[in-house]
């Protein structure tokens, strides 16, 4: 924005002005190049089937780079396979509905641009593997909703002010906002080997819900204690910190380092700290 402002009229134009127009024209041209309006052909190898089984089916279509994978799926749906099953909602990376495995990577279809994929090869699009298949790209993710209920809910301290409100420092709020950004796409659950390969759904709540537990535990107002649950009911010990969940998170939440490890530390402090154990024993004897 260092270019001098030239104005066509004496209208008030704080900032922006011609400098903005020039920058905008450059951005538009750049974005044109990025979306390379020239149409080309690409093949999408989409998993089709249901709980009983299925396989990959190739669809070839005209695409442009500005498109995202979800656009391609919609185009297939509209033109070639009206009954191709897919979940989606906002198409802007905010609702976490269109999770799938694109060329083997767990990703949101709405945020995966074709321009970043090698279109000389077929693009494989498959449903998440950690959950039971329903049809085509749609899986049964209801387990995540049921597991969430097993977390003890938020329990605030008494209000700080007579009018029933609380006072919080922005810094304390900021600390948990990272966890509250979660859009519940369940890609972290999908990639976690404890769920994906070992199917420990009954013993381990998975990264998504450990993020939720961390959010509650670090919430500035919360007074509930979830440490024992984390160890027993929620199986936090199963996580061996491979950080795959962090890698696939479309919101960039540092799941392992910021959520899971601090929770593990709390569990260790309470249950496995020899000094604390000793104190507990002594206190226990006194009683």
């Amino acid at each position: 924005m260092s270019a001098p402002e030239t104005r066509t009229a004496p209208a008030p134009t704080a900032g922006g002005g011609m400098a903005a127009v020039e920058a905008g024209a450059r951005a538009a041209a750049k974005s044109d190049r990025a979306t390379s309006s020239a149409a080309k052909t690409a093949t999408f190898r989409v998993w089709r089937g249901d709980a009983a089984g299925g396989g990959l089916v190739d669809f070839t279509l005209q695409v442009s780079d500005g498109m995202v994978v979800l656009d391609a799926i919609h185009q297939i749906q509209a033109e070639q396979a009206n009954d191709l099953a897919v979940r989606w909602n906002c198409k802007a990376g905010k609702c976490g509905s269109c999770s799938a495995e694109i060329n083997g990577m767990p990703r949101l279809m709405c945020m995966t641009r074709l321009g970043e994929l090698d279109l000389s090869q077929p693009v494989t699009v498959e449903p998440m593997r950690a959950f039971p298949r329903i049809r085509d790209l749609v899986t049964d993710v209801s387990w995540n909703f049921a597991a969430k209920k097993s977390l003890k809910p938020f329990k605030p301290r008494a209000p700080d002010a007579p009018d029933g409100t609380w006072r919080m420092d922005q810094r304390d709020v900021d600390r948990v906002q990272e966890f509250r950004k979660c859009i519940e796409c369940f890609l972290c659950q999908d990639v976690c080997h404890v769920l994906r390969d070992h199917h420990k759904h009954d013993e381990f709540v998975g990264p998504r819900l450990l993020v939720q537990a961390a959010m509650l535990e670090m919430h500035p107002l919360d007074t509930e204690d979830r440490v024992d649950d984390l160890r027993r009911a929620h199986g936090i010990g199963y996580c061996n910190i491979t950080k795959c969940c962090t890698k696939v998170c479309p919101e960039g939440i540092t799941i392992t380092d910021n959520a899971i490890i601090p929770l593990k530390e709390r569990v260790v402090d309470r249950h496995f700290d020899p000094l604390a154990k000793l104190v507990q024993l002594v206190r226990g004897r006194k009683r």
Partner: protein
Amino acid sequence: MAGYETVEHDVLVIGAGGAGLRAAIAAAAEGVSVGLVCKSLLGKAHTVMAEGGAAAAMGNVDDRDSWKVHFADTMRGGQYLNNWRMAELHAQEAPDRVRELEAWGALFDRTPDGRILQRNFGGHRYPRLAHVGDRTGLEMIRTLQDHGIHQGIDVHMEVTVLTLLRDGDRVTGAFGYDRERGRFRLFRAGAVVLATGGIGRAYKITSNSWEYTGDGHALAYHAGAALMDMEFVQFHPTGMVWPPSVRGILVTEGVRGEGGVLINSEGRRFMFDDIPENYRGQTADDAEEGWRYTQGDKDARRPPELLTRDHVARCIVREVREGRGSPHGGVYLDIAWIAQKLPDAKAHIRKKLPSMYHQFKQLAEIDITSEPMEVGPTTHYMMGGIRVDGDTQMSTVPGLFAAGECAAGLHGANRLGGNSLSDLLVFGKRAGESAARFARENRASTVDEAALEAAAREALAPFDRGTEGEGAYQVQHDLQEMMQDLVGIVRREDEMERALEGLAALNERAARVGVTGNREYNPGWHTALDLPNLLTVSEAITRSALDRKESRGGHFRDDFPEKDAAFSTFNTVIRKGEGGRMELGREPIPPLPPHLAQIVEENR
């Protein structure tokens, strides 16, 4: 007929966005059994897309604010067609509803003394929007969801409702199918709350997802309820315009609230060129004053970019039509310029507008901290909807309630940004409580098997036509093109007459749509069943827009470009008449009671 599963609740809530969740929580708190139905998974509804914040006159940032000013702002924004009782209740109760979210775990941004921070938004005199960066909607829906799942509510995810059940005049439940398996489900209930959101999918360029097909509007209409103000569709001024696949995705008004300016291809900040008379006294004289306003200077007045959405959208359309648009048919929205004002502007923008930064970076390869965005209007919100009683949210049909976007009244001819999140909290709660009271006195009754059978037969008919029928996607696509072209931001009588003819033809095509595959999670079938609802609301919009021969709020007539006082005294009402024909009427607006008239006068 094909079998169906029966479930019974005292209160059935249809739709699980903010309004539906809040209604379900309120009904459950009354001690009745509650079922909550949604077309998607829980927590995915369009509320997650709301970015700016929830308007509530808490006065945390500017203690001159009060419910009275909020009321006056809402009425002015709605051009006085609002249901004034709703505007009054909304302004009075919004602060408590927002604080209540905090008790359920929501974490809003803070003031220096630790209270809920509030930001500026178009049409609000004082900083009033409680917010969390630019993802307030996600914060709200997640808070309601995480609280709601512990209130004993039965959630029916991925279920579409086909029709409402009636016993005499009263609504006594709903009949639908689960999308996963395609099995029919009967919901018997003492009362039903509709909270189905908007109608954005009737248009080609929209910020709405596939879900917003006017289901609640159509269900209520067919159950005999009156719709109101259907001519008032809000076109949000700033949607993305490029690349084509993201066209219509929302760019939050918060960008302008933080100092973003609109520029045409000549480099002119064109919003200063046309300031409506009734906002002149509240609008900045120059750019410097506008900037000071965005930075919290209480003596400054708002920049013209923060005028109401209807006006800003029309100004953008004017610039583009007169050849001063950006390369892809929008205008420029520039926030990067604030580097001239703030030393750490780039970091500041990323902190204040993280989702916007992310969205443009990832989807358009634009860095908004150094480049302007290209933006243009996008179909965003339906002010019109189901006509309800202001206190109870009951429709004109006993036992049928409505809250949130699918209800009409609060916003009049134009909604102020931030008033929808507070709307769904205030009236979601009221609808849930009223429905619970109604259900306690009116138990579920006998079911009309013949009506169920007819509904099931109709729903399955597209399979009988199979590949012989046209696909639903093409019909939906043609409808969206037509509504965009003929009943969009700028309307004309001859174009809308053509739209009515077009709708008749589309109705015939919709009746012949065919579906392939089976009933399990079949989007082609789902789209076929959404079509009749879209066609119903499109016809209601077109007929209402034809009747209002003036320009007001979200409704702009090229052939009647001025506001006409003769049209300020009534709401347009749509009902299903004898023989199934759509009938239009005009309902006079009751005069403002003296205490509210005085507030309006004091805040002129």
